[in-house]
């Protein structure tokens, strides 16, 4: 009950989507809260876009449901005033001008026409308002999609890979936009396949792989548990080193290229330990696992489209 009494809450429960044989989304449950940016992360083909289409009642779930403040999307009166979404920047009629595209959307939800000029201004498209959108660049199309999402001044904003095609200035702009929308108490749900991007914007993370939920955690928690620091050791006397470490009660794991990795023990202590037993070290280096690495590790088993040139050598 508590979940649905807060405005701007999205609840996804047991959501499954099957396209013929292909299960695109598999028993997904999570919720998205207002006032923060929730990152929706997953590798290509993980089911992010499919999930977002089901949130908007565009695709019908095979099983499961999505509720927005307890209602189905289709039950919302004037949905654009409640949920603004950018799913696909190309989902517009290229023969129509940016102005008319936004105007017809505004009119369908009883949004005053004056709002069209405002959002065009916010996204910086005022100068090309009367140009047909088929001639827009990728980034301009993306900005027009963002303008459409902002049109109804909605409580909830959903963006599917909004940084696609944006220039560095545009990326910076959308990051700040999302943060300020969340700071105003709105719900911001944004998908990406870049952990580094999410680390800069998201407060909460929902990670999926092959349609299944892999993690649902706060960003801080994710960083704390995943950005572990460890020490990498290499020695020509690896057997002896392992022995010594074992006797000292230190667990080491073998990584690729004859290296060992040790968690939770300082480099100094390890160096002294090796010296005491007269073990030659070729490497003794403190390391920091990046969030991107942590993300890739998390999704490694569920990555559908591997680049074959890349050998998989993640620590186990």
């Amino acid at each position, binding site marked *: 009950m508590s979940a649905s009494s807060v405005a701007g809450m999205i609840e996804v429960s047991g959501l499954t989507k099957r396209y013929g044989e292909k299960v695109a989304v598999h028993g997904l449950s999570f919720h998205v809260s207002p006032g923060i940016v929730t990152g929706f992360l997953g590798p290509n083909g993980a089911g992010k876009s499919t999930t977002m*289409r089901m949130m908007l009642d565009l695709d019908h779930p095979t099983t499961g449901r999505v509720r927005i403040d307890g209602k189905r999307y289709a039950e919302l009166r004037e949905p654009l005033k409640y949920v603004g979404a950018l799913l696909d920047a190309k989902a517009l*009629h290229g023969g129509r001008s940016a102005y008319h595209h936004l105007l017809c959307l505004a009119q369908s939800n009883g949004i005053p026409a004056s709002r069209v000029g405002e959002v065009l201004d916010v996204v910086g498209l005022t100068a090309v308002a009367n140009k047909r959108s088929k001639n827009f660049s990728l980034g301009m199309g993306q900005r027009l999609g963002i303008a459409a999402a902002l049109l109804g001044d909605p409580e909830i904003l959903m963006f599917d890979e909004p940084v696609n095609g944006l220039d560095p200035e545009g990326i910076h702009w959308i990051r700040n936009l999302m943060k300020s929308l969340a700071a105003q108490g709105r719900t911001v749900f944004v998908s990406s396949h870049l952990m580094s991007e999410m680390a800069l914007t998201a407060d909460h993370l929902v990670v999926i792989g092959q349609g299944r939920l892999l993690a649902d955690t706060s960003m801080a928690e994710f960083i704390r548990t995943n950005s572990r620091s460890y020490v990498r050791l290499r020695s020509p006397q690896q057997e002896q080193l392992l022995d010594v470490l074992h006797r000292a009660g230190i667990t080491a794991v073998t990584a690729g290229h004859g290296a060992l990795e040790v968690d939770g023990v300082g480099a100094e202590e390890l160096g002294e330990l090796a010296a005491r037993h007269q073990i030659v070290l070729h490497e003794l280096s403190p390391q920091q696992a990046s969030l991107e690495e942590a993300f890739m590790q998390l999704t490694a088993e569920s990555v559908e489209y591997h680049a074959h040139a890349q050998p998989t050598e993640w620590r186990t």
Partner: protein
Amino acid sequence: MHAGYVWKSEWTKIRSVRSTGTTLALAAVFTIGLGFLISALSKNEFAKMDAHELRFADPTFISFVGTSLGQLAMIVFGVMVVGGEYSTGMIRTSLAAVPRRGLFLFSKIAVATLLAFVVALVTSFVTFFVGQAALGPYKASLGDPGVLRAVIGAALYMTLIAVFAMGVTTVLRSPMLSLGILMPLFFLLTPILGNVPATRKVAQYLPDQAGGKVMQVVAPEGDIAPYGPWGGFGIMVLWVLAALCCGWLVLKKRDA
């Protein structure tokens, strides 16, 4: 969610793309132009006719010969109105704005139908007067029995052809596929089937063959149609309703 909002939105959509003006203008030009040309040429034919032939002469219908070409532009109009949503991906943006799919579809079709009817009605009267002027002494006048019905009927026929195309495109969800089926169907197939005696019995129930009856004032010699002008038109209406129902079901059931 007001229907009024959605109608207004669909009106903005339809008036803000070029294809609307182009297709409707072509429909008018083809219908009026070809009607005038054939009427002018028929004037000489009329002069050579004997009393028996003159009994079956239908000057009103002759002036509407151009609808056979004009209807193709109407089909393109209908296909573009609906198909433009699918080919561009706009459909997803549209349904996110108006998730009640029935309301969305019927508002779109209602607005497009009204616009098509206004254009078709003006075209119809112009076609009639221009055609009759070209026929000179053999002309029919608006006050003659059945003539006003045929003139308004021609406008209704042209409108329904467009609506039928809208329904079919909602089912097929692709403008290219819809045009590829509808154009040869109405330009070649049904006229041929309707003229070959062996197939005529069945073909007379096809939408254009039945609906076209409403434009006739005089039944042609050897007419076997078991329906009158409004009966034929009614059959066309049933076809259109069937296409719209299928379109609505497909839109409701399928993922956008």
